[in-house]
C-alpha cells in the first residue's frame, strides 16, 4: 500500500521523434500531445471550477449577506452573520453534539474494526464468510439501513422486544438525549466498521511474519505481540482511518435526518444537520453559508493534518 501523494510530474513518454534530424514535426507532435492533454482534463476541470471553486467563493460571498428567500430580499450585512455565529445560543450544543458524535464514533469504530481484523487475519473457509458478513452493511443503502434500526429501536420495536424476553424494560431509545445519540452512533458504527476492518486487514497482511516468529521464540505473549509489533507497524493505517472516520462523521446527514431529525431537543443536531436546517428549513441562506464555512474549516484542518501524516507515515515497501 504505497500512497504517493506528492504531485509527481508525469513521466516523459514521448520518445517518438526524439531521434532523427527533423525537429519541426517533433515540435508539432509535442504540441498536439499537450493539446490532447488539455482536452482530456477539460470535463473534470470544468466540474471542479463550476461545482467546487465557484460555489466555495459564493459561500464566502453569501456569508456577508442576509438573504431571505421568502421575502425575496438580499442585502449586504457585513460581519453580522459572524457576530450571530459567535452569539448563537444553539451553536455550543451543536458543536458539542458534533464532537461527541465524532469521538464516540472513532472510539468505538476503530477498536472494533481492529479487533475484527485481528480475529479475521487468518486462513479458513469460515473466516471468509465472516469477513463477508462484517463487510456487508457497507453496501446496504444508508437510508434503508437507518430505517431498519429506527424500526427496531422504537419503544415497542424489536430491540426492546428482545430485552423484554430477558425481563429487561428497554428505554425509548430515540426519545431521550443520551440514548438517541447512542442509537445514531451504533447505527453508524455497524454500517461502516467493515470498511475500516478491510483497511486494517490489508495493513496486517503487510506485517512480516518473521517478526512474530522471532518474538515467539523469545516467549512473547499475544498481548506483547500486539502492543510491540502489530500496532507500531500498522500505525500509519491507524492514523489514516481515524482521520477518515472523523471527516466521514462530519458528513453524516442521512443517519440523523432519518433516525432523529436532530432531536430530542438539540441532542443529535450535528453541524451538517444544523446547516441544512438553517438553510433549507428556516431559509437563512446567509447564516447557513456562514455555518458551512465553519464546517469547511474543520474539514480542511483535518484533511491537512491527514496529508501531513501521510507524508510522514507512508512506507514504500519496494
Amino acid at each position, binding site marked *: 500500500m504505497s500512497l504517493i501523494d506528492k504531485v509527481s510530474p508525469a513521466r516523459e513518454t514521448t520518445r517518438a521523434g526524439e531521434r532523427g534530424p527533423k525537429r519541426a514535426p517533433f515540435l508539432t507532435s509535442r504540441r498536439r500531445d499537450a493539446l*490532447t492533454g488539455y482536452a482530456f482534463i477539460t470535463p473534470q476541470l470544468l466540474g471542479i471550477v463550476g461545482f467546487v471553486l*465557484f460555489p466555495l467563493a459564493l459561500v464566502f460571498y453569501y456569508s456577508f449577506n442576509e438573504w431571505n428567500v421568502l421575502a425575496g430580499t438580499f442585502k449586504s450585512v457585513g460581519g453580522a452573520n459572524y457576530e450571530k455565529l459567535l452569539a448563537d445560543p444553539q451553536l455550543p450544543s451543536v458543536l458539542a453534539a458534533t464532537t461527541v458524535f465524532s469521538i464516540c464514533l472513532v472510539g468505538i469504530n476503530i477498536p472494533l474494526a481492529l479487533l475484527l481484523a485481528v480475529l479475521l487475519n487468518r486462513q479458513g473457509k469460515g473466516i471468509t464468510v465472516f469477513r463477508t458478513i462484517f463487510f456487508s452493511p457497507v453496501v446496504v443503502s444508508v437510508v434503508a439501513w437507518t430505517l431498519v434500526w429506527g424500526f427496531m429501536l422504537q419503544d415497542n420495536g424489536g430491540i426492546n422486544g428482545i430485552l423484554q424476553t430477558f425481563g429487561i424494560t428497554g428505554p425509548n431509545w430515540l426519545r431521550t438525549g443520551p440514548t438517541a445519540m447512542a442509537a445514531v452512533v451504533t447505527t453508524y458504527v455497524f454500517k461502516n466498521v467493515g470498511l475500516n476492518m478491510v483497511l486494517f486487514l490489508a495493513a496486517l497482511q503487510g506485517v512480516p511474519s518473521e517478526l512474530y516468529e522471532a518474538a515467539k521464540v523469545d516467549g512473547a505473549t499475544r498481548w506483547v505481540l500486539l502492543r510491540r509489533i502489530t500496532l507500531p507497524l500498522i500505525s500509519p493505517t491507524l492514523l489514516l482511518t481515524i482521520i477518515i472516520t472523523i471527516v466521514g462523521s462530519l458528513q453524516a446527514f442521512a443517519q440523523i435526518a432519518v433516525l432523529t431529525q436532530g432531536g430530542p431537543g438539540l441532542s443529535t443536531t450535528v453541524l451538517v444537520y444544523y446547516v441544512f436546517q438553517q438553510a433549507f428549513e428556516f431559509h437563512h441562506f446567509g447564516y447557513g453559508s456562514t455555518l458551512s464555512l465553519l464546517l469547511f474549516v474543520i474539514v480542511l484542518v483535518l484533511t491537512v493534518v491527514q496529508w501531513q501524516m501521510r507524508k510522514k507515515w507512508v512506507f514504500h515497501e519496494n
Partner: protein
Amino acid sequence: MRTKPTVPRLLFRQAGKKLRWSRIALYAGLAIMALPFVMPTWWMMISSFKTVNELLAFPPTIWPNTPTIEAYIQAFTFQPFARQYFNSLYIAAIVTITTMITSSLAGYAFARIRFRGQNVLFLIVLTGMLVPTEVTIIPLFQMFNSLGLINTHWPLILVTAIGAPSVLATFIMRQFFIALPVELEEAARLDGLGRTAIWWKIAMPLAKSALAAVAIFTFLHVWNLYLEPTVYLSSPELFTLPQALTRFTDAYSGPMWNVQMAAATMTAVPVLIVFVFAQRQFVEGLAQSGLKG
C-alpha cells in the same frame, strides 16, 4: 496464520485438540459479534412479509406467521415506486459511466501527457477532495435555481459526475496509469496510433481493475445520496430511492413500517446480492476509496 508447532509425537494429539477448541471459541465469538451486522437486514426482510398486526407483536416473531406480499403491492401503489426505482438506477448508471470516462481521461492525462501548468491544474482538481458537497450545498442550490434546474435530475447528475465526488476517481485512475509500464503504449505510438486511440485501445483495457473500483464506489455513492435529492427534488415522481423510502407515512405522518421495510428490502437486497458475487472487486474498490478519501 499458525505454523504447525514442532512437538514430540506424544503431545501432538493434545496440541491438535487445543487448536480445535480455540478455533471453536473463535467462531462462536465471531458468530455472536456478527448478530448486529446480520440482524437488521434479516429484520428488514422478515418485517416486509408480516401483516401490520404482527409487525410490533410482543415478543417479536422471527418468522412471519402469515406471510403476505401486501406491503410490496402497497409500496408501488402508495408512491410511484417503480418510477423512483428507475430514477435511482438511471441516475446511478449515467453518473457511473460518465465518471469512469471523465476520470480516466483526466487521470491518464495527468499521469502520461506532458503539458504546461500540469501540476497546478492537478492541485486545482485535488481541491475537490477538500470541499465536501455538504459545504457548498447552499450555493449549488442557488446556482441551479437560477438556471431553472431545481426539481430536475440535472444537479444530481452533473455535480456527482464531474464535481467534488469525482475527484477521488480521477486520483485513483492517475495512480493506476502512473504505475502502468509505458512500453505497450510506446509500441502503439511507433505504429502511428494517436493519443486518443492509445488511451482507448491500450490504456483503458489494461485499467479494468481500477475502472471496476471506480465504478463500484461511484455507484454506491450515487445510490446512497440523500442530502442532495432532499435539497433539489420536490416532486415524488422525480424522487430517488433513499428519499422515497422515508416518505411511506400514513395520514398522521406515522411511518407505515411494513411498506417501508418492503421498499428498503427492494433497495438494499439487489446490491447485496451483487456484492456477494463480486466481493473481491467490492472490497478492493471500497478499500481504495477509503485509503485515498
